[in-house]
């Protein structure tokens, strides 16, 4: 927001101007903004306010709710549901790390090694979106079926023994375990990691790799010292785009998990739509929002990419 050169601020109107002062012209941006901003204020900001107010209400569906500044709801919510909160962070965090590990090679491949296949590969990354994500998530029930080839292979390779020991799976099952939920989350949000990564990798001048090689960097040093640092904006926005929706998701936990893998999204959903305990649901949702905002702000600050927006 510097006032230097570029777009000049309004001149302090000396000497009588012959051109009509354009009062109408000056209002143009506000007219353009009005509908969109109004929409967001009424249907995004106002709901937040209502939610905050609901979270400190008491009462019941029959008698109605009333604001009583009952902050105990928050305390109870945390006391009752901290495992779900913790699980949300853990699952979403693992999924984000997995997305980064899986997505980076593919983004790199498309950006630097795909040649004339680049567009085809990009289409293939986006293509799954065209099938409803619920249908695709249900397909994982088939893939991870108890007696299916995937579980069989993992069992034969003793991978399941390791994951069981880590508490990620139970016995020779994958479905209805934390591993299945993380796997589903990773799958669902992978494109949100790949696309920003690709965008920032694609901007890197290929000659930088040659220059690094020319200056005695081995391929792995080139990657660590040149490519990866330059792709940081993509890494940051990719991790945010993965972590935020994953932490609030309840579809994967519901379809692929069990009652032991419930995340905070599941709790909010049940409280709101089944139990109809609006204050608790609102408090939980509010806490989730606050936690996410704090984490995102901290993360953006730390990674020094505040111009991300």
């Amino acid at each position: 927001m510097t006032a230097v050169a570029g777009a000049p601020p309004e001149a302090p109107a000396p000497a009588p101007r012959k051109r009509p002062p354009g009062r109408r012209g000056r209002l143009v941006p506000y007219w353009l903004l009005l509908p969109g901003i109004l929409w967001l204020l009424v249907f995004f900001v106002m709901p937040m306010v209502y939610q905050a107010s609901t979270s400190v209400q008491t009462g019941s569906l029959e008698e109605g709710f009333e604001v009583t500044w009952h902050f105990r709801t928050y305390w109870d919510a945390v006391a009752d549901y901290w495992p779900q909160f913790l699980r949300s962070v853990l699952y979403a965090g693992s999924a984000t790390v997995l997305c980064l590990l899986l997505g980076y090679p593919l983004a790199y491949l498309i950006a630097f090694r795909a040649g004339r296949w680049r567009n085809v590969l990009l289409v293939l990354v986006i293509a799954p979106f065209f099938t409803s994500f619920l249908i695709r998530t249900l397909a994982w029930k088939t893939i991870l079926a108890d007696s299916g080839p995937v579980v069989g292979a993992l069992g034969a390779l003793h991978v399941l023994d390791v994951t069981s020991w880590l508490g990620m799976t139970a016995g020779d099952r994958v479905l209805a375990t934390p591993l299945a939920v993380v796997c589903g989350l990773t799958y669902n949000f992978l494109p949100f990691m790949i696309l920003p990564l690709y965008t920032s990798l694609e901007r890197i001048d290929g000659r930088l790799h040659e220059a690094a090689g020319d200056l005695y960097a081995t391929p792995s040093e080139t990657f660590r010292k040149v490519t990866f640092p330059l792709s940081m904006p993509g890494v940051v926005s990719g991790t945010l785009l993965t972590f935020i929706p994953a932490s609030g998701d309840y579809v994967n936990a519901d379809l692929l998990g069990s009652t032991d893998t419930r995340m905070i999204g599941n709790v909010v959903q049940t409280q709101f739509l089944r139990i109809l305990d609006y204050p608790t649901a609102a408090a939980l949702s509010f806490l989730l929002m606050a936690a996410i905002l704090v984490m995102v702000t901290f993360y953006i600050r730390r990674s020094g990419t505040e111009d991300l927006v």
Partner: protein
Amino acid sequence: MTTDRGGDVRLSGISKTYGSFTAVHPLDLTVPQGSFFALLGASGCGKTTTLRMIAGLEEPTAGTVSLGGRDVTALPPYKRPVNTVFQSYALFPHLDVFENVAFGLRRRGIKSVKKQVGEMLDLVQLGEQARRKPHQLSGGQQQRVAVARALINHPEVLLLDEPLGALDLKLRRQMQLELKRIQTEVGITFVHVTHDQEEAMTMADTVAVMNAGRVEQLGAPADLYENPRTTFVANFLGTSNLIEAKVETASGDDLVVEAAGQRLTLPAARCAAPAAAGGAVLLGVRPEKISLTPADDADRVPAGRNRVTGRITAGSFLGVSTQYVVDCPACPEFEVYVQNIDRDPRLVPGAEVVLHWDPAHSFGLDAAQDIDAGVETAGADEEVAAR
């Protein structure tokens, strides 16, 4: 000079400020109809702002713009009989060459544009490319489309904002001649903004040298070159050797000055500064006016010439000429260009030499100015242009 004729561009007291920054100081300027006028200066000197105020793309903070006696200050750009060739052309990427050129005609409600556009494209030798998109053209072709797109509207004035800046050197030379030819052919007033002094001097009838929001000097190219009135003009237009000197006598047609123990003369008429005996003055001389003689032959230098002694520190052979840098007591980096007619093998770095020139080729400037004004900016811009 000229009174208001049909297509004169007159700027009266025009100025532009952005907040506390003054881009253009109050300026009076008349561009006579049919002339090729250049606004020359380094980037940020206010030349483009001035041009944009003529185009109507920038609203002057004060003052008026009139075209052919009509005040157009209040008119928006689309109502002014003025067209612009933009820097980097601003060709519409979604329209082909034909539609780009036809754009102005169509906006003015002219239905049958085919013949006119065809003729205009032939004029700029782009008849074959009519259905191409701008990004499929070379830089020179894009430039010609931009010119055609503006000229087809028969504007009273054509404004050119660094139109050749994006072209390589050779193409630039070619387009300079081309633009000059077109201007002579159509007879429209051209106002040309550039930072390239050679370009301004080659093409324009009149050059206004701008610096820090003001016009430093205005005149025909040869006049500006021979008689600069400020150090900025002396350094920005070509190269000048400036010697800090003290005035000894200031009577009659000649000024006699003294610098580092050497007595030099310059015509009083060519001194832009008030000079009185005992005062300081800058004596200037262009590098190509100077002759070099080895110190051994010093006695063969004709009498009546200004002479300075020094030692050659560097020489670069350029084919037509050789450029020497000479270290003199009066001026540590004296530049001398010597035509390669008979090359004297004794003129090598380290050699003691006498520099001498006709006193009539000296000019005088006010010593209160920055002696290096315009030096670095010119150099920096040249680098930018070379890229």
